[in-house]
């Protein structure tokens, strides 16, 4: 659906995007994550044709965004990190105005607006003035506005910022529903716990480059494999420690009561072999698992600066 190659953009001396590559298959709900100033909004604005890239290529559903600007706009819907509403305009009029911006007029526009207002649960607010809506309602209205021309790719920049938990949950449910309808979505957000539940794939951007990209399973697997291994020993702790100290994959060992935390550089087969070795040596193992990684921990590991990385490494090694 979306293919970005070697995208570059600078603002004066600041290099906002430094050869960004990104690929999103059709029907994905892609989480776009990165620290402030990493280049998320710049990337999204370039995709939405609001900014001109210095170089690179963008292909959306077969349309070369650099050559066919109108074709690109027909394919995408953009929800920015602000509402962009008019005073003195009712909800239905606001929707019909944006419908007419896409050349949808008359009865067709009215029908489409009614459908979308129902979809975002604003049908009873059609005759309300837009500036009188609550924050959550405005956000839902913006989503409906972005869907007015039935785009295939929906770009959402920080859509849940400033929303209360209930509204946020309702909003994420709407995004899941859109994905089920076959739309491809890019969601940039700082609320990582929600992205991990919502997204099917994720990309982490740092200093204008994509540093990690893949499906949620792949990324968690990749990150989990570098997480510590937790072994709960019921009896024969000395024997267990002796085996672990001599194992080539074991980097660090920390013991807390009957639980051992290992820095273990090995794949799933190595893990299985180690477990077998412990059992063969009459060590009674009551628990054996990798510590689960969260999107937050991945994000912190990847985006941490050198000093922070050293602290994180120390924390991991010392079992803090």
């Amino acid at each position: 659906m979306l293919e970005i190659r070697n995208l570059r953009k600078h603002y004066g001396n600041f290099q906002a995007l430094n050869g960004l590559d990104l690929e999103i298959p059709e029907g994905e709900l892609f989480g776009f994550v990165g620290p402030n100033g990493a280049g998320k909004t710049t990337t999204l604005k370039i995709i939405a044709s609001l900014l001109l890239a210095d170089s690179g290529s963008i292909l959306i559903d077969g349309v070369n965004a650099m050559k066919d600007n109108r074709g690109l706009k027909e394919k995408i819907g953009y929800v920015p990190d602000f509402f962009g509403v008019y005073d003195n305009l009712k909800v239905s009029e606001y929707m019909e105005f944006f419908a007419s911006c896409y050349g949808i007029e008359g009865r067709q526009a009215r029908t489409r607006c009614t459908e979308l207002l129902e979809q975002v649960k604003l049908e009873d607010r059609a005759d309300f003035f837009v500036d009188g809506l609550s924050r959550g309602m405005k956000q839902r209205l913006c989503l409906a506005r972005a869907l007015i021309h039935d785009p295939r790719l929906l770009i959402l920049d920080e859509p849940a910022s400033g929303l209360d938990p209930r509204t946020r949950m309702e909003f994420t449910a709407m995004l899941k529903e859109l994905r089920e309808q076959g739309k491809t979505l890019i969601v940039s957000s700082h609320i990582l716990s929600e992205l991990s539940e919502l997204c099917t794939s994720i990309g982490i951007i740092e200093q204008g480059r994509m540093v990690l990209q893949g499906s949620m399973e792949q990324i968690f697997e990749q990150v989990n494999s570098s997480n510590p291994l937790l072994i709960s020993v019921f009896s024969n702790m000395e024997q267990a420690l002796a085996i672990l100290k001599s194992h080539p994959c074991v980097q660090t060992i920390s013991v807390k009561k009957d639980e051992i935390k290992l820095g273990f550089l090995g794949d799933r087969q190595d893990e299985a072999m180690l477990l077998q070795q412990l059992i063969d040596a009459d060590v009674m193992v009551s628990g054996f698992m990798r510590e689960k990684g969260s999107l937050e921990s991945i994000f912190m590991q990847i985006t941490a600066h050198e000093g922070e990385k050293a602290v994180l490494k120390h924390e991991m090694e010392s079992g803090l």
Partner: protein
Amino acid sequence: MKWNPVYKRELMVSSRSIRMAVILLLFNGILAIVALFNLFSVVEQVKLTAEIQYSRFLELYTFVSFIEFIMLLFIMPALTASSVSGEREKQTLELMLTTTMDPREIVLGKLWFALTTMLLLAVSALPIQSLVFVYGGVTVADLAMLFICHGVVAALTGGIGMFCSSLLKRSTLSTVCAYVVIVLLVAGTYAANVFAFRMDMNELNAYVYTANSAVRRASSGGFIYLLLLNPAITFYAVITRQAGSGDIRVPFEQWFGALPDNAVIDHWILISLGLQLLAAVLLIAAAVYTVTPVRGGGKRVQEEPEKSRQNARKLRVKIARFHAFRA
């Protein structure tokens, strides 16, 4: 016919506001009071002297036209200078730019709305302006000419406002800029001519005894052509032709000295209207260009690295040749 979405929305929103009704009331109220006083004084004079002063009706026509002109000069920039920047401040410009609507439609929609507002004011003033027809003195063709002149002034001031609005992010700043440009255009070009004329006169006075001063009269020289872009001068020329002396040379020579004898001076109104209209079109085109975020697609973008590679290659060849030459 497909309506411009921006124009349609502006009309809808403005029709809900009381602002336009208040402007219409004030504008026509002032004109009506002036017209009534004028008629009253004419009637009183007839009672006293048994004479009708027809020139008073022409004065009324001139007054209404002048008020309309001043209004165009001051209201048009206010309406247009906050149009695009206002959308930017409300953060709705980006939303419109992501739609398939052409940026040209955004700029033109805003401009049409401002022109419609002005047209509404001008049309609402027609009954009072038409009082002049009761006793004659101005023809329908004159009125049409005045409308054309006002239309061009509206396009020019609107164009200045639109350009400032598309260029600057804040409405306050763009409004101030638009007014500064208009003041420079109206008072600046006039002042430049008066200054040039005075300087030339001083120079001539210094050589009063030379034979040259006897044959040459002081003038503002080439600065006179700057006035072609001055809408106030054009309006003055139109009104002078309709309700004044009929020849713009007389006031021009009083203000700016000797005039060159050429086709520009002979067809001053036509040429100045044409030039001002051209300036308006250029300003509007520049506004559209400024609003458009991505221009001409990525061809230019993708060709840049290749071009710079070619340039680098050429430079390397030149350096190699230079070293070979030195060796």
